[in-house]
């Protein structure tokens, strides 16, 4: 017979406190702001769901959300296939394995604001290596501070440069875990390289790819620092992604109520998409 008592709660308590102070309480503060209006002096007025309605009806929010989905969609469409291709091309054994792995990991080790600053300088038309080369050597007009297309090309390229490695490393881990027998059997069965990829490599990479897509979705959907440092949301509003817009409303205009409502909507969208994706990807597992 097992002893029954309530001592277990003491062990959970530290975690509960930690989560309460770093997540639940700040979150509830946001919820609190989202249903009230303030004119300062710590005086609040009840506002109900007005802020939510306002945000959901606002063209500005729709535009930022649209840009956000475009950005995330673009980087996923580039990074996932590119990451898989690089992982497939990487050596499986020998001297070059550690060289490749370390080189791949380097971009991920650089702090986000540094990445933003690096790419800013890199692409400036007058002094940047790339900017100068494009404008003066190739004669292609390229200025991400003036041209929205150039700004988009730059932030997408920057993200691809920064984060494709993550997909590569995860895919590579999935690939090296496939036993040789699978490849040998495929050879004997006369499978084409495409069949090997479609029926062996891709299914075996499914789990790691699910994680890679999920991580890249969440990170890119919440991205702030790099575009903020690089373009500051401009030119105009062309690269004002959700988080940049949110910070503008919260800290620029100091509209705490709408900003709080917007963060909750933002959070709900991230959560919903992640959950949907994960559920869809794993629904066949265990069958």
């Amino acid at each position, binding site marked *: 017979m097992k002893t029954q008592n309530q001592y277990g709660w003491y062990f959970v308590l530290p975690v509960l406190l930690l989560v309460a102070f770093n997540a639940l309480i700040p979150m509830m503060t946001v919820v609190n702001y989202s249903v009230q209006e303030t004119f300062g002096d710590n005086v609040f007025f009840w506002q109900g769901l007005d802020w939510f309605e306002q945000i959901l009806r606002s063209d500005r929010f729709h535009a930022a959300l649209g840009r956000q989905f475009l950005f995330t969609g673009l980087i996923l469409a580039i990074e996932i296939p590119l990451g898989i291709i690089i992982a497939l091309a990487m050596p499986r054994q020998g001297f070059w394995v550690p060289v490749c792995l370390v080189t791949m990991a380097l971009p991920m080790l650089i702090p986000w604001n540094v990445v933003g600053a690096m790419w800013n300088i890199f692409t400036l038309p007058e002094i940047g290596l790339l900017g100068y080369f494009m404008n003066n050597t190739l004669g292609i007009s390229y200025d991400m501070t003036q041209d929205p297309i150039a700004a988009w090309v730059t932030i997408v390229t920057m993200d691809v440069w920064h984060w494709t490695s993550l997909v590569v490393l995860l895919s590579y881990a999935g690939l090296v875990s496939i036993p040789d027998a699978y490849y*040998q*059997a495929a*050879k004997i069965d006369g499978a084409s390289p495409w069949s090997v990829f479609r*029926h062996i490599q891709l299914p075996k990479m499914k789990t790691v790819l699910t994680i890679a897509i999920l991580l890249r979705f969440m990170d890119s959907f919440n991205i702030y620092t790099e575009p903020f440092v690089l373009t500051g949301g401009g030119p105009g509003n062309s690269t004002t992604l959700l988080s940049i817009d949110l910070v503008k409303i919260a800290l620029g205009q100091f509209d705490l109520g709408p900003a709080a409502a917007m963060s909750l909507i933002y959070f709900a969208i991230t959560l919903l998409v992640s959950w949907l994706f994960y559920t869809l990807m794993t629904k066949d597992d265990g069958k």
Partner: protein
Amino acid sequence: MAQITLSNLRHSYSATPKTRDDYALKEIDLTWEDGGAYALLGPSGCGKSTLLNIISGLLNPSEGRILFDDTDVTSLPPDQRNIAQVFQFPVIYDTMTVYDNLAFPLRNRGVAAAKVDARVTEIADMLEVTDMLGLRAAGLSPDNKQKISMGRGLVRDDVNVVMFDEPLTVIDPHLKWKLRSKLKELHQRVRATMIYVTHDQTEALTFADQVVVMQDGEIVQMGTPVDLFERPQHTFVGHFIGSPGMNILPCDLRDGGAFFQGEQVALEGPASQGDGETQIGIRPEFVSIADQGLDATITKVADVGRHNVVEARVGDIEVKAILEGDTPVKGSSVKLAFRPDQTRLYRDGWIATEAAS
């Protein structure tokens, strides 16, 4: 279908082998007859999987040739050799159904859909997996997955040889026996040459008509299970096959007779001339307790069910005997007799007596 000939085959995993020890396969000359059921038996690391991979073309031998009938296939890749191989761990294509798994090798070779369907149905029937054909292969149990792997090997009717690389390793013991008899039955039905690699003597002896025993990259003996049991060509075979293995006892050869612990032991026939270390080989099955013979003290008696495995000490040498019925108790003194026609002499490991005619 074809006869497979291995000629002067040597293989080393090192690029520049210097000594004989650098070779994983030392010198293999072997012919596998068309339609035979063969087992390749040996301890782990003896080179049997290397040999298998060379036949299937997954590995290129350092030296020597492989012939399928009269065609030299040494440099052909696996898919052009028309062979099938079943691996230690079941290899199935997770995304496909059982049916598609079985059809895969045929479809890759552009076989017409009607023929694919006929073959898959036939093989599924033989393996008793017909009711699983529509299921996703990923969800099957390990033994069913291994059945599907075997099925993919058997589905092509033009294969030269089907090879099994320790296919029952991951199967539960009570299903091993079932799958083993299934394999034997399949061999009788499809009549393809089959090579079965294993380190388990029971699997080898029950499956194969001919067993090839390997040790350290060399073939020690090839023969029927009965040959291997009754007249091992090498002490290694004697020791490796049988449970317990053959007694290998040091002896002196003088005056035309073999002496073990000072007593003369009758051999099956005259010993060949030569120098080298000599040993007597006698299976525990042919050691008995008699009125006259070698003085021995019983040190251990183990009842294994149908019979007793008795260990006795002659001087300082242990001799095992398999005895039925009444057995002397531990510590008692007895006299051991060896059945002369089953008593062999080995010189430097190799047999050195002529069989009694």
